[in-house]
């Protein structure tokens, strides 16, 4: 069994934005159920001892927590490289200075579109885009490296060239162009978000050209949507193989979307250690390695390359988390993706909200 390399700490589900592709579960955790500062500090110390090298402080909006500075300091004290994954709308210079003093290493700032009106419609928050631009400036003035994270889909891909320009103009050294992945809220909004094949091909071409044009200046990471694929993505680098996530209420998850698999039970950090959850919990062992795989994954030459794809997507589309990911052309359910592409084309969103 490998030790995990990175921990995703979902500190809260609270967020001023309401993005219709939010990666949080449909059933959001309320503030009263969130882990305390002390509990998070314990999680970080245990994560470092287990072998984690980096922590992603995420949410919801992590800076919505009043103890974000103490939490960052605890992660830094544990020896973890600390990334803040933020929407930026709550970030001001005093908070940034406190975070730097606490040992923060890097900021990833989300942007919903390059066009302010589009960005504010998609994120469901007025005035958000200007605040993000200010946040980028604050991060750079504090001397921290900045990554811009652009989630792309049917309704903003036309602005991809401008998103790349935005990354350069805002001083990002790295840009993530991440096509929406379809679980939870995004699956609910799939008809409004799925790109066409032509949109995807153009985006891929633009990213490849920008990588060459801005070589040595801007690193571009590119996450493709698998609805147009013939082979599935190696989700999480394999279930329980290199990554773990802790939810706002303390559930220890093999991936941030794992709670979308109904019926699966997770260890909670309030009852157990991180190591025990990683090594011994039913949830982590269920799809670890290749032994669980059905045909056609079993014995496939790609079994240890793509790990059978994504368990959450298999569950969302087939009702069976142990099925081959339908993104694989060898899956008996592969036709579901083509059918979804035919149906796509609405523009209305169902915004993320507490139920």
């Amino acid at each position, binding site marked *: 069994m490998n030790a995990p390399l990175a921990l995703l700490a979902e500190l809260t589900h609270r967020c001023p934005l309401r993005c219709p592709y939010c990666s949080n579960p449909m059933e959001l955790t309320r503030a009263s159920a969130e882990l305390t500062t002390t509990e998070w500090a314990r999680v970080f110390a245990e994560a470092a001892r287990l*072998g984690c*090298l980096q922590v992603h402080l995420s949410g919801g909006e992590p800076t919505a927590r009043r103890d974000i500075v103490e939490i960052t300091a605890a992660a830094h004290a544990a020896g973890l*490289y600390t990334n803040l994954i933020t929407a930026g709308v709550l970030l001001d210079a005093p908070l940034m200075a406190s975070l730097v003093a606490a040992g923060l*290493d*890097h900021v990833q700032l989300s942007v919903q579109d390059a066009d302010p009106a589009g960005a504010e419609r998609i994120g469901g928050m007025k005035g958000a885009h200007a605040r993000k631009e200010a946040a980028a400036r604050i991060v750079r003035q504090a001397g921290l*490296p900045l*990554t811009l994270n652009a989630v792309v889909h049917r309704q903003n891909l036309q602005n991809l060239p401008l998103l790349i320009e935005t990354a350069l103009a805002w001083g990002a050294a*790295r840009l993530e162009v991440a096509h929406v992945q379809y679980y939870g809220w995004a699956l609910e909004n799939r008809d409004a978000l799925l790109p066409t094949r032509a949109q995807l091909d153009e985006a891929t071409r633009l990213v490849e050209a920008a990588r*060459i044009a801005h*070589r040595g200046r801007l690193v571009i990471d590119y996450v493709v949507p698998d609805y147009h694929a013939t082979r599935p993505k190696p989700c999480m680098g394999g279930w329980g193989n290199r990554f773990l996530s802790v939810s706002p209420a303390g559930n220890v998850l093999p991936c941030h979307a794992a709670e979308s698999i109904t019926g699966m039970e997770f260890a909670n950090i309030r009852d157990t250690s991180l190591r025990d959850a990683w090594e011994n919990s039913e949830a982590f062992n269920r799809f670890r390695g290749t032994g669980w795989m059905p045909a056609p994954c079993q014995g496939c030459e790609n079994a240890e390359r793509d790990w059978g794809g994504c368990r959450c997507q298999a569950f969302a589309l087939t009702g069976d988390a142990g099925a081959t990911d339908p993104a694989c052309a060898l899956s008996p359910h592969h036709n579901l993706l083509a059918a979804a592409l035919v149906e796509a084309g609405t523009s209305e969103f169902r915004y993320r909200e507490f139920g």
Partner: protein
Amino acid sequence: MPAAARRLCAHSVTPRFAPGVRLHHDIARERWVVMAPERMFVPDETALEVLRLVDGARDMDAIIDLLAVKFAAPREVIATDVRAMLDELVVKGALRP
């Protein structure tokens, strides 16, 4: 020369780690890793030798001199390897020329 082959590091540059990038001793796995924003990679032995000499003060010529002595190798051979490696690390976003 195609853009992809453009040389990013000249002789006289003083390479330094990009903001947020550093060498980190991974105690659990007994190895050195390059830690970077939301990424990490394991340098091979040669890259590690070069990265250990990157301190923001030594220029490329100084780094080449030190490695040529250490490995008792012809300076031109070391220079070619070091330049290629530094370029690669700049493209990855790990170093700034």
